[in-house]
């Protein structure tokens, strides 16, 4: 067995990005054309780094003429996302179309179901006046306590009010908001099936393994070319592939709630470069001490962080599972 490399801050950095890109592109092409027997790729583009890299990889794998980029904004989307997505598609010579999903979401009562729950927490909440978002309370990523969620409403002057979210309202807001990702998935499959193309899933390694995706939403796809890449590596690919600099420099957001919210604030609680290193140490069996020494942390805090990672992986396992069907005739 190969000797494990000593843990270092640069351990995740890809030494040869070109080789990695070529390997992914080759496999993507083989998987879609030979395994799935489909003719091209449909990619939902949000103006974020992950979908941008997936679009660029798809353009390399199938040729830009066999890739369809789809922007799917809704009422709460940041208009900047659409601008960036268009710039991206232009850069890689890919056709981009826009599918507004607000009316589909209104049909599901996504907004009213969500706002009804928000109103139970803040009676003064009026979606025409306030913006809202869910965030993680800092119970301490380095403690053994699981996170707890808070709800924030923001008035037009930018004043914020925040409360811990009770279970029922938390579940209802998340369930209602998940209509967004599931509606996008349906739209992607409409286009994919009508073109006989594959749906390219855009989640990265963290989203997959920590469960930061919606089952049968953004987790619903035929292939996930960056599903095994750390965010640091996704950024390396983006630079190499020539993804527009504004996209690379943009802070990753959820673009799900009406108020602006970063992914770090909503879910990860750590900047991605730190998260990458800790997660690498955790999943590759480095001891908390080995990681703590390099990261300038205490062994105890890193051990607690690793316990949190383990909990996250365990509690989100069901999201990654296929429907269980071995009930008879096994």
């Amino acid at each position: 067995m190969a000797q494990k490399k000593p843990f270092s801050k640069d351990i995740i950095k890809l030494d040869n990005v070109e080789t990695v890109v070529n390997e992914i592109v080759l496999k993507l092409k083989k998987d879609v054309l030979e395994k799935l027997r489909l003719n091209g790729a449909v990619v939902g583009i949000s103006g974020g780094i992950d979908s941008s890299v997936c679009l660029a990889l798809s353009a390399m794998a199938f040729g830009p003429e066999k890739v369809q980029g789809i922007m799917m904004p809704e009422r709460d989307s940041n208009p900047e996302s659409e601008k960036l997505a268009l710039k991206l598609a232009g850069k890689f010579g890919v056709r981009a179309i826009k599918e507004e999903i607000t009316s589909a979401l209104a049909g599901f009562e996504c907004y009213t179901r969500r706002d009804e729950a928000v109103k139970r927490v803040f009676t003064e909440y009026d979606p025409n006046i306030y913006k809202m978002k869910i965030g993680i309370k800092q119970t301490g990523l380095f403690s053994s306590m699981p996170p707890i969620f808070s709800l924030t409403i923001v008035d037009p002057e930018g004043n914020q009010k925040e409360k811990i979210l009770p279970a029922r309202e938390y579940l209802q807001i998340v369930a209602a908001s998940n209509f967004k990702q599931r509606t996008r998935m349906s739209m992607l499959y409409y286009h994919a099936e009508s073109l006989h193309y594959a749906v390219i899933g855009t989640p990265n390694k963290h989203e997959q393994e920590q469960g930061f995706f919606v089952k049968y939403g953004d987790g619903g796809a035929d292939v996930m070319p960056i599903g095994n890449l750390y965010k640091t590596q996704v950024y390396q690919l983006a630079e190499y592939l020539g993804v527009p600099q504004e996209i690379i420099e943009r802070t990753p957001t959820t673009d799900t709630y009406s108020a602006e919210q970063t992914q770090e604030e909503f879910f990860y609680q750590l900047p991605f470069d730190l998260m990458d290193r800790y997660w690498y140490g955790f999943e590759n069996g480095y001891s908390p001490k080995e990681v703590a020494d390099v990261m300038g942390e205490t062994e105890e805090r890193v051990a607690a962080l690793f316990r949190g990672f383990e909990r996250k992986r365990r509690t989100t396992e069901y999201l990654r599972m296929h429907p269980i069907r071995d009930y008879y005739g096994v």
Partner: protein
Amino acid sequence: MDNIKIDASTIREKVKTYINQAVHVDKEKIRNDSLIFKEGFIDSMGFILLVTFLEEEFGIKTSDADLLEENFESINAISDFVGRKTEQ
């Protein structure tokens, strides 16, 4: 709901009953001093449900400052925390 004065053993019993029905493990394994997070009995959704249960059952309000491991790490810790909150 206003805070209700309630004796310590009743609080402990209610918390214990709740934890026992909320976890998906052998109830025998959970003692009053078991570390429910460290030992993996309660996950994130379980914690959210627990806080909601405490607020509804005992009429307390959990603030940011209360979200400390020492207040929630075991049945004993939770019971003491609820006891302190209901006295406020």
